[in-house]
């Protein structure tokens, strides 16, 4: 499989406050890659930077390539071509991400017409096809419906259909199931997996639920305080974590018997990160240099990378 998306030391600052540091990610063709991390760890900001959707006042450094396109060198038109047709995105809250006053059909077809130059009828036919693909019953009728007439799960599936309309090669899904129930979540996960299998779609899937990662993603990145602390094949990362943070995160999950094991302390606030390892204040395995040197993400073989010289090296 060839690499579809590759970022190198991507860093994002929002109004001068660094929020994402040195994020190096890669997504291959037909692969589902997961990003996990606590709230505020910079997952969404990273995703936004890949589509140039950051709020004004943001600055991005580093490099990002999508296929043979250099994302960092794109102009306005270039972005318009990439967005939707190359990379598309599904947002966390399907209710907020659909325009409440435009019919599903309209939201589904408008960019097909600009990107693919389809006429009204062709776009409509494809829209019906797409709705069918995401398992929305009675697609013809659904085209005329407005978002508020859909259930949460249907809305998210419609949002996915919209994202898929122009046959993008990469879908960034930013916590698409966090706002949904487990049963509904299951449907979305199955849908994404099916799309990957059937169309060779690549997915960058952001979540804070490690269970979801395990079920869906082939490879995963663990974010903390705007940094990738660990990456590798999902099973490796979740079953044999090599960073204390990943381990602590896994430990904090409900499990049978005994009390839960919270991570002590509280997450790092952007702009007030400690000088050394961002996890150092909460980590149980520190050494003196942890508080002074920011560990770099090191390869530990087998497509595994860990940013912890203390634990990761073992």
């Amino acid at each position, binding site marked *: 499989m060839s690499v579809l998306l590759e970022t190198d030391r991507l860093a994002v600052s929002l*109004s001068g406050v660094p929020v994402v540091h040195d994020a190096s990610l890669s997504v291959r063709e037909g692969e589902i890659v997961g990003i996990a991390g606590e709230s505020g760890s910079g997952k969404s900001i990273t995703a936004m930077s890949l589509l140039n959707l950051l709020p004004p006042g943001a600055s991005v450094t580093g490099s990002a390539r999508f296929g043979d396109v250099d994302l960092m060198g794109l102009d306005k038109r270039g972005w318009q071509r990439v967005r939707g047709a190359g990379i598309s995105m599904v947002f966390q809250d399907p209710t907020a991400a659909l325009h409440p006053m435009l019919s599903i059909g309209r939201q589904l077809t408008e960019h097909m017409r600009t990107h693919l130059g389809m006429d009204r009828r062709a776009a409509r036919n494809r829209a019906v096809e797409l709705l069918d693909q995401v398992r929305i019953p009675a697609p013809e009728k659904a085209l005329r419906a407005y978002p508020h007439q859909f259930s949460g799960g249907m809305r998210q599936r419609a949002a996915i259909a919209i994202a898929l309309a122009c046959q993008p090669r990469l879908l960034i899904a930013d916590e698409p199931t966090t706002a949904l129930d487990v049963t509904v979540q299951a449907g979305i996960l199955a849908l994404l997996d099916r799309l990957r299998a059937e169309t060779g779609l690549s997915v960058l899937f952001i979540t804070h639920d490690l269970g979801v990662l395990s079920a869906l993603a082939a490879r995963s990145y663990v974010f903390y305080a705007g940094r990738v602390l660990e990456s590798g094949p999902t099973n490796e990362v979740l079953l044999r974590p090599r960073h204390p943070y990943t381990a602590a995160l896994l430990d904090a999950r409900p499990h049978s018997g005994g009390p839960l094991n919270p991570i002590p302390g509280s997450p790092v606030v952007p702009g007030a990160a400690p000088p050394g390892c961002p996890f150092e204040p909460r980590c149980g395995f520190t050494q003196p240099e942890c508080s002074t040197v920011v560990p770099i993400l090191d390869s530990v073989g087998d497509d595994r990378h860990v940013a912890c010289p203390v634990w990761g090296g073992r």
Partner: protein
Amino acid sequence: MTEIRGGRVGRWLRKGVRRQPVTVIAAVVLLVWLVVAIAAPLIAPYDPLAQSPQSYDPPSGEHWFGTDELGRDILSRVVHGARLSIPLALAIVSLALLVGGVLGLLAGYLGRVVDEILMRLTDLVFAFPQIILAMAVTAAFGPSTFNAVLALVIVSWPVYARVIRSTVLVIREEDYLHAARLLGVGPVSALRKDVLPNSVGPAGVLATLELGNAVLLLAALSFLGLGPRPPAAEWGSMIALGAHDLSKWWVSVFPGLAILTVVLAFNVLGDSLRDRIDPRYAGGQR
């Protein structure tokens, strides 16, 4: 000690000037007007009521803003006008806020019939254009400062009532209120401790924004001859005197500029205050 503080204030000011130059200018303008209002007798070169035979003198070194029909110095009258407009605007807004606030609080908190009646009442006031209702009230009771204030309070309380009511309706469903009630806090102390403090913020912002409006409405009433009685130096009535004869432009232009600057300062500050309290509206960054 003072040095440190001076430095801090200086830094704060410099930061303010850089970030929000318009707001700082507005604050300075308002400050100047406040000083003018307080120190009017010291600033005004003449007695604002003193008549002289030099009627309708155009602006000159002697009378910077010229004189009016009765030979009164317009600069002095404009300066003294600040003593009327600014405190009266404050009075109107605070009274309206008080009346509207209490009624809105009750409507929102008690709900049902009380709410329905009060809201229909606000509808009723809204159904009259502000100035027409105010005009009818002052015309009916006779023009005077008190009646003008009364009329403007009558026409402006519903805005506050509505805003407060809607914030109370939100607060009424807030978990902290429920939590307090579950702990056995009585309705009155809940109203006092939980509802009231949380509804003053939006009302305060509104009040600041309305201060400018109050100055304008008061001036409009005076312009129509329904404001403070002569010979009071009220800006609106000064404009009215000039309106008889536009060729004496200075008679109406300077009081108009006074209104404009005061109201603008109030509005800019209100706007910035709203930005501060409701950061969603903040300029600069999203």
